[in-house]
């Protein structure tokens, strides 16, 4: 091994890297919150909706789950601007890469979160819904106050796992040259000719962040088994 390491580029470039990390975390936060909200609505529609709605949501979920995320990002990056131009009639309209990425991740992740929430709703016993309706709750408040809280509780580990996957997937915005953590690191590394140190550092940071998520999942599952509740993930 004759490579001589020089970690100075990290020390000099950390403000730029921090900006990249902020962008990554921003993408994760937005896609997680919007994705879980939309995914939960989709799951409700898929379980309780009328037949045509069930078929439509199933189609939506299968579409997003069967194409690579990179292709989804390309759809929104290359196809969203012309669609919006046609819709608004404004020929000069542009969509920033960040908005394309947010749209792509929110919609794609909502398909994955939908499957998790559907399993979560399925893990709540039938009797709970019947009892809530018998007590005079409307269908909506039975969902809101009885079924969904239990579904969320049962599915917390899976939701965290999916969010860890989302954190890893946000690195794919590299393909549209967005300045996320990996993008910032790449630019810095190419400027200084220090790809080796930079990519090893990037891998270590992602490993640390994802390990936090894994540790949290293990902690929650251990606590649940101790409490004697069957774990569902």
């Amino acid at each position, binding site marked *: 091994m004759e490579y001589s390491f020089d970690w100075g580029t990290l020390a000099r470039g950390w403000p730029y890297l921090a900006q990249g990390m902020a962008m990554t975390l921003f993408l994760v936060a937005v896609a997680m919150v919007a994705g879980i909200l939309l995914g939960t609505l989709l799951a409700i529609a898929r379980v309780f909706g009328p037949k045509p709605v069930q078929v439509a949501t199933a189609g939506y979920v299968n579409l997003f789950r069967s194409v690579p995320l990179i*292709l989804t990002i390309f759809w929104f990056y290359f196809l969203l601007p012309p669609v919006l131009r046609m819709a608004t009639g404004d020929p000069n309209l542009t969509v920033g890469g960040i908005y394309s990425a947010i749209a792509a991740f929110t919609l794609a992740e909502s398909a994955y979160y939908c499957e998790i929430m559907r399993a979560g709703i399925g893990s709540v016993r039938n009797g709970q819904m019947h009892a809530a309706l018998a007590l005079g709750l409307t269908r909506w408040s039975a969902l809101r106050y009885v079924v969904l809280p239990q579904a969320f509780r049962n599915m917390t580990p899976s939701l965290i796992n999916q969010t860890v996957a989302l954190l890893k997937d946000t690195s*794919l915005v590299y393909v549209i040259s967005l300045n996320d953590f990996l993008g910032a690191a790449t630019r810095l590394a190419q400027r200084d000719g220090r790809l080796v140190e930079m*990519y090893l550092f990037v891998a270590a940071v992602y490993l640390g962040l994802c390990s936090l998520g894994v540790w949290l999942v293990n902690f929650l599952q251990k606590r649940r088994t101790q409490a004697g509740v069957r774990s569902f993930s």
Partner: protein
Amino acid sequence: MNYSWDWFVFFRQSVTGEGYYWQMLLRGLGWTVLLSLCSWVLALGIGTVAGVARTVPNRTARIVSGVYVHCFRNTPLLVQLFIWYFVVPELLPASWGDAIKQMNPLWNQFLTVLVALTLYSAAKAAEQVRAGIESVPRGQVHAAMALGLRAAALYRHVILPQAFRIVLPPMTSDFLNVFKNSAVALTIGLMELTGESRQLSEFSSQPFEAFVAATVIYMVVTYAVILLMRHIESRSRVPGLLGA
């Protein structure tokens, strides 16, 4: 502003002289299928070894495979790919690194993606195999040991045949993930299906047709795999288990 749809674009010659546009998509699909099949077969092998190693009594084997699985599951595939492509050749002995850099670029790209995708997918497969092994009732292990089977025979004849049949359904979605993940190849210049569809959209200025075609191809292949696996699953179901 109006978009003029032209579905016959696929039957026109590429402006860069690479043949017809449909040939570009077909070539891309070829790379995608080749990559995902090769890495899935290799990943199954490595994943089985790593998954078994996590359950054996030997402490060193458990720790090594545990560290491998943790590290490769918890870093982005794209970062791993860049490490294999940009970092590893620098850290190898100079003669090896030079040999890699002087390779035919296409082979270099293909082998790099193959290594990255295989090791990433093998870590996931290892987790499935481990879960399958742990779902085999302990009584069977004790019974096999009481009958005088050694560790190798125990895994070979009792645990693994059942474990594989139990984890077949999750393995299907793992394979589909490999198939989708192979799209990262375009970041180092290997033009698989997603990469070719982007090129097609740029060369022909018909982005909608290009991306719709790629989407349809991905969905068709995914659906075909699901149908095939559903058939295999129904044939290999372990009798007496619910939904397994």
